[in-house]
């Protein structure tokens, strides 16, 4: 029997095992099964594999620990507590926008610092007065620094970064 013919028959055997063949095709398969032991064996293979696969997947689901799973989902649905995020003053969004803009504007400063591989706490140039501008206070590589938090207070802002080496960088900005 050629592979193509066998594939055609086996495709129907697979669907027959699932009870998904139409009446006429199912009858043809029944007749085939009466006379062809190899077809019967292949049907049994499909049935055995389905059974074993179902048992395997059931076991995977059963082994997983769902204790507290629904609670975690429900907790994540709750809105953040107001205490965790103080309400913004009317002027705050504008201040934050200005702060973020300043941060973007100073992006080259980070690139330069990455090249030197030294930067940890930087007081933004010109933000706290010329005397403190651009001071590098701690060592670290900010090349792949991840922003952890940003905050603003009054006219000042601070961004907290963490580098892949674990160094924390605080970037301060102000008027």
């Amino acid at each position, binding site marked *: 029997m050629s592979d193509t013919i066998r*594939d055609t028959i*086996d*495709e129907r055997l*697979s*669907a027959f095992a*699932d009870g*998904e063949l139409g009446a006429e095709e199912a009858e043809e398969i029944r007749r085939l099964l009466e006379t062809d032991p*190899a*077809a019967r*064996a*292949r049907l*049994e*293979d*499909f*049935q*055995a*594999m*389905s*059974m*074993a*696969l*179902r*048992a*395997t*997947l*059931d*076991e*995977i*689901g*059963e082994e*997983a620990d*769902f204790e507290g*799973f*629904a609670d*975690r*989902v*429900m907790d*994540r*649905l709750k809105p953040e507590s107001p205490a965790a995020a103080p309400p913004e003053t009317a002027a705050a969004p504008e201040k934050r926008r200005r702060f973020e803009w300043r941060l973007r504007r100073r992006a080259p400063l980070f690139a330069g610092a990455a090249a030197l591989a030294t930067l940890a706490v930087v007081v933004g140039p010109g933000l706290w007065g010329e005397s403190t501008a651009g001071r590098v206070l701690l060592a670290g590589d900010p090349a792949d620094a991840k922003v952890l938090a940003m905050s603003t207070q009054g006219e000042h802002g601070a961004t907290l970064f963490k580098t892949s080496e674990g160094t924390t960088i605080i970037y301060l900005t102000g008027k």
Partner: protein
Amino acid sequence: MELDDLSLVRKCQAGDDQAFRTLVLRYQRKVFTVAFALVKDREEAMDIAQDAFLRVHQRLGDFKGESSFYTWLYRITRNLAIDRLRARRGDAQELDEKAGWELERADPGFLSSRLGTNPQRGVLRKELAEQMARALGELPEKHREILVLREVEGMSYEELAETLGIPKGTVMSRLYHARAKMQAILRGYLGDEPLGLVVGEEG
């Protein structure tokens, strides 16, 4: 009396969080199993399951009941799992590229003689379960997916066609190829060892 999915969804839409919790409890294992079958990592599957329920909750307002709740939940789970696979630098792509591989066919009766044919009496041995999970993991993603939906979810060909967005004829053909491939992989794993279901009277 236990409420059906649609009634629970309607309650959720009216703001009843307890109803949503009931849906989570009802489907958490299924969602996890489907996610696991796709990403093959338990921890990641658990994250996906959690994210899927959150996504469902966010979009409850859009659910009109045109498909079953589970089909909808499944689609969201699947999309999240596929996003994760793609994020793993084309892992899914690599798997699908193997779709054309040639494997030696298993001889007729090979699997049934190894695995047994009576699910009521069969107890899956740990070793076999591991081989099955490993073989499943080697399948191309689309084959793994359709097998899981058929065997775990018990979806009909009609439901599979709807869920996967493919014609019913493709469902039949894809399932067959998935099974044939799985059998061929298992043949390599199981060899001639008498590995399989422990068959005997229970109790």
